Every structure is written in C-alpha cells, then in structure tokens.
C-alpha cells in the first residue's frame, strides 16, 4: 500500500515536471536515497559509523566509467564489475576495520576514504584531477535512458526496490540481529549472533548500495572527477542519515531529499549559503534529535492524542 502510494508519487512527479533541471534534481534525490539507505543500514541499524563511504560511491562510478570509456564495455557489465569490486574492497577493508569501534572505526573508515580519494586523483586511468569524460548513457535493450524523465524513473525504480528489500531485511531475523549489535554487542553475542561476521556483511551491503549509486551517478552526468567523492561527500552522507533519522528507512529518503534540495534553494543567500545551511541542520537536530522522519511523526501523533483526549474530555 505504502509502496503503491510511493510509486504513484514518483510517477506523478516525473510526468508533471517538465523542466530538465527539476527532473535532474529529483533524480539526484533518488541517487542520494540509495547512499543514505546503505549507510543507514550500517550506521542507523547496526551502529557502526563510516566516514569513508564516498570511497565506495566513487569506486562504483569510476569502475563503470573506466570500463565503458577506455575498454568500451557495456555499462551493465560495468555495473557488475563495480558491484564485484565494491564487495571485494568492502570485505578487505571491513575485516580489520570492524574490529574497531566508536571513534576508532570512524577514523579508520576516514583513512580508507582518503586513500581512495588519492587513488582516484593519481591514477592515469581515472583521468586524475581533470576527471573522466565521455561516460556513455544507459540503454535497456532498445530503450534509451538518455531523456531526463526516463533516467529519473530508472533511478527511482532502483531506489524503491532497494528500500523494499532493505525493509524486508530489517524485519527479519537478520535485521533483529543487526539492531541487537547496535544495542549491546556483548548481549548480542550471548544470543549466539556472530557479531563480527554480521558486521562485515552489512558493511558489504552498504558498500554495494553506494557503488550502485555511483554507477547511476556516473552514467547520468557522463563526467566524473575526484571532488565528487571526497571527504565532504562522506560527511554529507552521514548528515543525510542523521537528519532523516537513524534506523529509519523512510528517514533516509527524507534526509536525502532535504540535503539535495536545500543547497539548491539556498543559493539565493549567495555567499551566506553555507552559514544558512549549517544553521538549518543545527535547528533540525536541536528540535528533532530523532531525525525528521521520527520527529515529524511524533509531533503528528502527539497532536492526534491531544485531540483525542480533548474530545474525550468534552464528551465526559
């Protein structure tokens, strides 16, 4: 039911919007939703922070970009390669890193993000600082996704399927185990949960979602450069999760939307843009520490119960 409403909203937004700029903005929200969703599975649900997730975003973008531009692979094979590489990198990095916790894990993932950033900048294949140009658009059989509207629908189809699958995962044995690790790792392992293994697996899942988002981004904008995957992008991903709501799948969507639209609308403040941006985030966090999704829902429920009490009193 919720999904039907969601799909209808996407279709309506797609068909009612004609400006290519707005269509692209909506597409970016979809891509960012994937990023926030993946990070939320790791951070919000499992309680493991990552300050280097832009590395996987970049890995997805560059893998498919390099393979299609330099080696003329089909983008779909590029996607497969991006996923395989993201899985491998995430496994490799998670095994030592997830032994850490709290700040140390944050610092470790931060370091990984920095290393990948340097790799994107220094390799000749990636075009270094000047970036990678001429990444082809996508086709599904004969259907071109070149038009902004088609690409929007494609990105949102991927996002909705991902949300659907992640929601199922959360409401399962695995999802409970993830939340158990968040609440108390000691107690989780006393329940027979292999916490080390599960943390690695969820890290890999969130890396794959970021890589898919990177793939979608690369083939949308056709030009990528290292600055799209630097430390600030990792921080923005964390902000999306926190603003939208930790451990809230629909919050990821909201956080992604706010952090995509806000910078665009704030350009009217010109040079004060960053200040206003920061202020808005601070105010949201102070007023709604649970994140936008939970916070707004709480206000709604409180208003509902107050109204309920008032009517009960007037009847009594």
């Amino acid at each position, binding site marked *: 039911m919720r999904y039907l409403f969601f799909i209808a909203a996407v279709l309506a937004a797609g068909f009612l919007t004609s400006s290519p700029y707005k269509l692209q903005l909506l597409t970016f929200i979809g891509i960012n939703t994937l990023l926030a969703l993946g990070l939320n599975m790791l951070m919000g649900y499992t309680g493991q922070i990552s300050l280097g997730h832009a590395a996987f975003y970049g890995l997805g973008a560059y893998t498919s970009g390099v393979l299609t531009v330099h080696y003329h692979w089909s983008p779909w094979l590029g996607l497969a390669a991006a996923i395989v590489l993201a899985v491998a990198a995430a496994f490799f990095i998670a095994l030592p890193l997830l032994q850490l916790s709290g700040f140390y894990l944050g610092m470790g993932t931060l370091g990984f993000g920095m290393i990948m950033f340097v790799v994107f900048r220094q390799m000749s294949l990636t075009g270094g600082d000047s970036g990678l140009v001429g990444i082809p658009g996508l086709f599904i059989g004969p259907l071109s996704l070149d038009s902004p509207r088609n690409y929007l629908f494609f990105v949102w189809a991927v996002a909705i399927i991902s949300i659907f699958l992640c929601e199922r995962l959360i409401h*399962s*044995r*695995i999802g409970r185990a993830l939340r158990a690790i*968040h609440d*108390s790792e000691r107690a989780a392992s006393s*329940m027979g*949960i292999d*916490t080390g293994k599960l943390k690695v697996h969820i890290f890999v899942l969130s890396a794959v979602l970021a890589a898919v988002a990177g793939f979608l981004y690369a083939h949308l904008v056709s030009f990528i450069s290292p600055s799209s995957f630097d430390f600030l992008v990792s921080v923005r991903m964390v902000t999306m999760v926190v603003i939208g709501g930790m451990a809230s799948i629909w919050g990821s969507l909201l956080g992604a939307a706010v952090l995509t639209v806000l910078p665009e609308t704030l350009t009217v403040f010109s040079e004060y843009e960053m200040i206003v941006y920061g202020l808005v985030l601070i105010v949201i966090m102070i007023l709604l520490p649970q994140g936008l999704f939970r916070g707004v829902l709480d206000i709604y429920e409180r208003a509902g119960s107050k109204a309920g009490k008032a009517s009960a009193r007037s009847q009594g």
Partner: protein
Amino acid sequence: MNALEARQEKPLPVLRVEAVCKSFGGIQALNDVTFDVPAGSIFSLIGPNGAGKTTLLNLVTGSFPADSGQVVFRETMLNGRKAHERVALGIARTFQNIELFGSMSVLENVLVGRHVKTRCGFLGAMARLPRTIGEEREARSRAMELLDFVGLRDAASQRSTDLPFGWQRFLEIARALATGPRILLLDEPASGLNAVETSSLAELLEKIRKSGVTLLLVEHDMSLVMKVSDRVLVLNHGMKLAEGTPCEVQANEAVIAAYLGRDKAGPRC
C-alpha cells in the same frame, strides 16, 4: 535429600571445569579451580566480591580465554571456541547489569534469542521465502510461550527498557531460554529484586530446572542460594574454598570465617 543425591550420581556432568587459571595483569583472578556441574542440578557459585565468580562465568561463556586448564561442556572441549558458538552448543547466560536490547520490544528481545534456532540469511530475508515465513511464525510462537513461562505475556509489545526492573530480569531469563540452552548461567539474578520478586525468581528457577535445563548461579543472596541449590561452590581469592550441599557448605568452618560469618552459619538441615 535422597533424590538429590541420586541426581548427583548421574554419570555425565553437563559442565566440567578443570584446573582453570586466569590472571589479569598481576591479579590472579582464578587459581586452579576444578568442579563438575551435574546435569539437571542447580549449582551455585558464591564467595566475597572479587573472588572470581563472574570471571569464571565469563570463561565458560567464552568472553575471554583461560590462561590454562580446560572447560568441557558435555563431551565438547570449549577452549578456543567463540562465545557465539558456545550458545549454539547450548550455553546461555544473563548479565549482572541487565543488558536488554533497549530499542526493541519485549517480544523482539526474546525473538533475538531464537537466532541460533533459525536459519534465514540476507537473501532469505529479502526474498521472504515460504521457509522464512514459517520459521518466523514458529519463532514468534515459541517466544510467546517463553514470555508466558516467565509471566510477561501481557507485556509483549512494550518497550523492553520501560519494564519495571524486576521484570527486566525475568525478560533477560526468557531471552536466554529462547536460545534453547542445556545450561543457563545466571549472574546475580536476585540483585536489585525485592523479597516478593526474589521468591518468584526462586519458583522460576525450579520451573526451569524441571524443564530440563541445568542452572549455574552466581549469587549473593544466601537465603536464595541455600533454598534452591543442589550444590554450592565457594570461591575465595580465586581459589576453591569448599564445595558441597548447602548444609555442608554452611557448616564449613573455613567458609564461615571467610564469607558467611557466624550469624548465617550452622547446620539447619
């Protein structure tokens, strides 16, 4: 006491601790401790603070390895096995400072306990196969049974940390039982409970034992220990001071001097 002695003569102990030593830095927390926990018994570990009781519990559950000696569960050597593997073998525990999953409901806490008894992985959860659905339904009905067993059925949908303190202890026991243990290790289950709650805890422990689960208890509440235990082991400064039935231990001069004191001493049986 005859029935009790007959039980102790059962051949295979469920848990065997042999010559276990453990030190932290320069402190010898456990020094050459050996004992058997007979199957189907309630076995208590007592002793002054710092005697090594919780350390012993942590060695059995696998929180850290022993320096030397071995722990054998039924016929399986536990040395080198990880904590989560020991749960699958049938060793469950509760914590001295209650460690519930605070973001979850009472029912969900118990459902986490069913983790080792269910199989579905990432793909199974996403595909929601018929097998996964069946497994989930079964886990829920078992969890509700266990909530019933400890008397928390009506609180199933409440947030776990909203429960009164005593109920949280009972919930932790239900959660541990959900793993389907053969032995349940309880770390000071009566601490923080009032008299009424302590007596219902005693009833619950008896009920658990009757259901076929062996109990290893670390406890300071002597009247509870003496009432429910089949055997009692006294630790002092990491060493075994005495072991025997509650009567024997209470009459033991060394135990009286080191731990119980005169007023609690003396054979009452």
